[in-house]
């Protein structure tokens, strides 16, 4: 589904990703872990098409298409979804208008009929229950005045409504209490169940979320590179031992080079 090859990315002239290689197959769940500042969020954002990040070399193929050549909206229409670490507040646009516009723009791109108000409402109602979104939040402006947990829940709600192929979760677990965490995980698992080919990349600092969204692979990102990959046990190991041993190992390898 997604193939990242030797990806180098700079932000404001500073190199953040230094040769990322990642293969994600249909239906897989990958977790990307790593200490703060390792480049996890950069990876998620660059895949979604954030423009202040410069790709200096490498390639990203998504479903046979060169992802890096696509605009952010076309990436979304092709099936890439980023759940933001810090969802943006947009006063003056209701959640409903925002999502209806998004759903229909994506449908238009795929050559599907536009959903009318009734059909859209039915779709929303269905998904709202899953993530426990209150009706009132739907008519409120996008994320405005939402608590941290409500914002994250809204991201997952959008994920289930827009139904992409690949979900990138950028620290969706940060700042969530255990109940909110379960709701979010529940939403992600529902998204997985919506299509057997749907894939998920969970970017996280902590192992906690991975109790509920069980990864097939865990990668450790450090200093702009994936320095270790393994099964879900790697996440447990990181939880137990922290990130220091990774840092030590790699300082060593850096100096050898």
């Amino acid at each position, binding site marked *: 589904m997604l193939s990242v090859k030797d990806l180098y990315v700079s932000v404001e002239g500073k190199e953040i990703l230094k040769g990322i290689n990642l293969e994600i197959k249909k239906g897989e769940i990958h977790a990307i872990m790593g200490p703060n500042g390792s480049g996890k969020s950069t990876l998620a954002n660059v895949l*979604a*098409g*954030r*423009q202040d990040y410069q790709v200096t070399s490498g390639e990203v193929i998504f479903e046979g298409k060169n992802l890096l050549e696509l*605009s*952010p*909206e076309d*990436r*979304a*229409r092709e099936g890439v*979804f*980023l759940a*933001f670490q810090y*969802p*943006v507040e*947009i*006063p*003056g*646009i209701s959640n409903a*208008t*925002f*999502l209806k*516009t*998004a759903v229909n*723009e*994506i449908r238009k*791109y795929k050559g599907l009929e536009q959903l009318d108000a009734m059909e859209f409402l039915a779709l929303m109602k269905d998904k709202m229950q899953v993530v426990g979104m209150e009706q009132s939040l739907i008519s409120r*402006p*996008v994320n405005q005045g939402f608590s941290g947990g409500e914002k994250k829940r809204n991201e997952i709600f*959008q994920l289930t409504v*827009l139904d992409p192929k690949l979900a990138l979760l950028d620290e969706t677990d940060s700042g969530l209490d255990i109940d909110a965490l379960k709701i979010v995980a529940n939403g992600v698992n529902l998204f997985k169940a919506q299509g057997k080919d749907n894939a998920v990349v969970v970017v996280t600092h902590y192992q906690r979320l991975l109790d509920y969204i069980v990864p097939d692979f865990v990668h450790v990102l450090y200093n702009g590179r994936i320095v270790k990959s393994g099964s879900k046990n790697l996440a447990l190991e990181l939880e137990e031992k922290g990130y220091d041993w990774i840092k030590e190992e790699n300082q060593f390898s850096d100096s050898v080079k």
Partner: protein
Amino acid sequence: MTEVPEKEEIKNWYYSNFELFENSLNGQSKAPVHKIRKEAIAEFIELGFPTTKNEEWKYTNIAPLLTQNFKPAYLSNKISLSKEEVSKFLFTGVNASILVFVNGDFSNELSSLLPEAKGVKFESLRQVLNNEPDFIEKYLLKSNKTIDGFSALNRAFISDGIVLRVPDSTILENPVHLLFISGSDEENLLVQPLNYIFVGKNSQIKIIESTVGVGSKAYLLNSVTEIFTGENSVTNYYKIQNDPDTCFQVSRTLIHQERSSVFTSNVISIGGELIRNDISTIFESEGCESNLYGLYLADGKRHIDNHTLIDHAVAHCHSNELYKGILDEKARGVFNGKVLVRKDAQKTQAYQSNKNLLLSRLAKVDTKPQLEIFADDVKCSHGATIGQLDEQSMFYLRSRGIGTEKARSLLLNAFASDIVDLISIEPLRETMNRIILDRLHKVSL
């Protein structure tokens, strides 16, 4: 570009037209109102049109208006419009009493009143000046003083306008729509209505004033409106400026508020080449509330200037002001909001805000929120922002599959909705939403 003619030439044009006007009055030149006109034309000759050296006109250069002469509409051929032609200027779904003015003259044939408005007295100024000699003493000579060349010119040619008197304890469910249609195919016109609106004690009224244009020639709409809100009355005043780009508009609105009255204006400027709006609220007594809202959209080389003054002369009054503007291409916006809190105006609450979005590097806005406080127990705030569309919001929308253009227009519409949502007449709000969305699509191209 056409040269701006010499000042004297411009003054001579209006003076010679004044003489023509005077001669056409047919004996009416002995009427008391004519004394006001004569004084006013003398003031105009002395003042001329304001230049950017005048502090109140610092950011608004009226040169484009001076390159052409405007014939006082009173002296020009009348144009005739059918009801069908007029109906396209009405707002769909708004059930209103409609008063139509064609080039400043009240048209009885084109107007229609709802049964509920029976108790309200609608008269043309011309009629009132003939029938009530003391109206001049009581109103014309009182507050509407000459402050610059435009107000002098309006007074020099006083002829018509509306005098609307809502008796005490009258609540109108439906709005009164004052529709000003101006322009001609023959010559440039100067249209100068002078309006008086009196809202009785405990009464409630919604007024829509809309200005539109017909014909291919330019027009200068130089209007003055005075509004007197009685004790405990509620007035909603919507001013919709949707003129063609042949329009130059200078509009002055003076509001006198009696005890515990609430006045709310919402000025939406989406047309015209050069627009200058002056709104002044004077609190005559305690417990009043004044809400001044405005939205201006401009592209091309259009210029929109909003000046407001809220005079907290007495204690316990609230004012709340929000003006928002979207400027594209080479358009210019001006906001000058003055809030004056006088020494005795304790317990005043005054909030003012002006927010602007610039969509092009050549668009410009001059904003000057002014707060002058001489009382010590007050709550006041003011502020202004000028910015571009938020990049983060753009990316967020695009990351959900919404294309750049649609994302832009969603965000612009959201910015404008703060003001449009404040329109309490639902069908008018919907119509304005549609018109604005349509304009924004054009603006953001």
